[in-house]
């Protein structure tokens, strides 16, 4: 029952999940030069990170018994901080990436020196931060999982929810194939940076709203 509920909730709200994840994942996939298999691996890493985020919150949901969901100021601060983290990662990926081999004066030394420390972890981190950023479907799942009496049930619920929402993300590796063209790769990376700027604003506003 727990599994079915989680999966069905995931399927029902997966469209909204796609709407939240696509602005992060699509630019990232376009920004990478990957084969179909490579793109599928990236989406897999992203989904893996998202699952870890979900499970972390499942544990928290069970431990706090919806307290975090109901505590609006703290919830907005947590959301804000996670969104700022996601934004910084996207900005670093988007704007530092295309500038790595910039030979003109436009890129400052600081920007040119900036390198992504562990690029292989980037999709996992993106997935983790996206998964933990409390989107509306996620809050629904959070509320339901918090009502369950056992921790393992809460975890199982989130795993099923994750599987339900992931169905909508499965076609995304095909998007990654476009990243084999230089121009599209540059566009993808810059787009990730632009998305990052928007999330940075949203995150900061959430933190301010939470503090006020």
């Amino acid at each position, binding site marked *: 029952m727990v599994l079915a509920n989680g999966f069905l909730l995931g399927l029902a709200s997966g469209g909204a999940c796609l*709407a*939240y994840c*696509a*602005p992060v994942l*699509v*630019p990232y996939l*376009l920004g990478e030069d990957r084969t179909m298999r490579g793109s599928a691996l990236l989406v897999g890493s992203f989904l893996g990170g998202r699952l870890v985020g979900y499970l972390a919150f499942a544990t928290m949901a069970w431990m706090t018994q919806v307290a975090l969901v109901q505590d609006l100021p703290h919830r907005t601060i947590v959301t804000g901080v996670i969104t700022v983290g996601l934004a910084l990662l996207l900005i670093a990926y988007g704007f530092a990436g*295309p*500038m790595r081999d*910039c030979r*003109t*004066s*436009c*890129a400052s030394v600081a920007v040119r020196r900036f390198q992504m420390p562990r690029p292989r972890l980037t999709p996992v981190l993106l997935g983790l931060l996206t998964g933990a950023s409390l989107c509306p479907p996620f809050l629904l799942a959070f509320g339901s999982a918090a009502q369950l009496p056992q921790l393992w049930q809460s975890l199982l619920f989130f795993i099923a929810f994750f599987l339900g929402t992931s169905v909508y993300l499965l076609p995304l590796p095909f998007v990654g194939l476009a990243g084999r063209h230089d*121009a599209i790769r*540059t*566009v*993808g*990376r*810059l*787009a990730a*940076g*632009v*998305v990052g700027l*928007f999330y940075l*604003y949203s995150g900061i*506003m959430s933190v*301010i709203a939470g503090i006020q």
Partner: protein
Amino acid sequence: MVTNHDTRTRSLPKAILLTLPILLLMALMVTGGQPVPTEPIRLIPLIVAYVFTVGLFFLIVYTGRTHRYRSVLFVIYAVAFVMTFIPNLFELRGSMAISETEMIQGHTPFCHMVIPMTAIPAALSRTIIFPGSMLEGFAAIGSMLVLWLGASITLGRGWCSWACFYGGLDEGFSKIGRKPLWKNIDRRWTYLPFAVLLVVALASTATLSPQYCAWLCPFKTVTEYAEVTSATTLVQAVVFVSLFAGLVVVLPILTKRRTQCGLFCPMGAFQSFTNKLNIFDVRIDPDKCVRCGKCEKVCPTFSMDEGSIRRGKTRLTCTKCGRCIDECPKGAISYHVKGTPAGARPRLARLLFVYPAFLFLAIMGSGMIQGAVYRVLLLATTGRLVE
């Protein structure tokens, strides 16, 4: 010494003859098929707009220079648009700010910048995600879509240099100063408009709201913006003003390029794809080209680079403004009709492009110029800009 431009000049009788169609068509367009008004405050703007547009077309034909005279009309058209639009807003609602209630009632004028972000949701959900009216006047969604479609078929991305009432503003600012103070712009930034397009298309589809209008449009500064009633609308207003100051004023002055059009505008990026459908393009004759790089230096929208020159074409983002054609010292660059041999009958190809393109600009521009001259006369005679 005979320069490239001297060889392009036409004889006076021929230039007059070639101007005749525009002379007649514009007479029809500026009057709108109605009797000529007799009150000076209506008649003077009409005469000014008519003489000005027809005169500029004559100069384009006579001198063989496209960009120089197009640019004059294009910049004045943009300024006239602002001069007409703002007083109209004050007449309608007493402010440049639009309230949330008016937005919900669908009173927001539609502009072409929204088209890329409404296209995907419209295809997916048959819903136009914009709080405007469908068929009410010039700024309605329907009329703007028809205008855009017509211009896209005729001009491709030429829309951005011959029709867009915003492009003239950064073109105007890019003409201030003699030399660029900032030359080395990393070419990768020329892909930013496509990135912004991707983001606003994704975000607009995800949220079913026009995200570019809400967050990124620099031209809200000189047209219409959401009433500042909260921290969010305040931030939006700050973003609009900063983008306008940066992309439309400061950067064009520093670089002498159209930075909003070439480095940011998602509508321009979207419009670039229509260059593939359009029958006109700009070609470089490899036999005449001496690789001086002048076209690359002067192109306002960064649409020429070493690769494109080597291929004898412009980049996809070319707005067909004619600047490179005017500036090329060897006359190696010309308008071209796709499917004909490159460099074949360049004068005819230019005329075939310039007629519809100029007509488009002149029809849209003359209306705005009439409006602006009317406002100036109104100010001079009554001391007020609004009726």
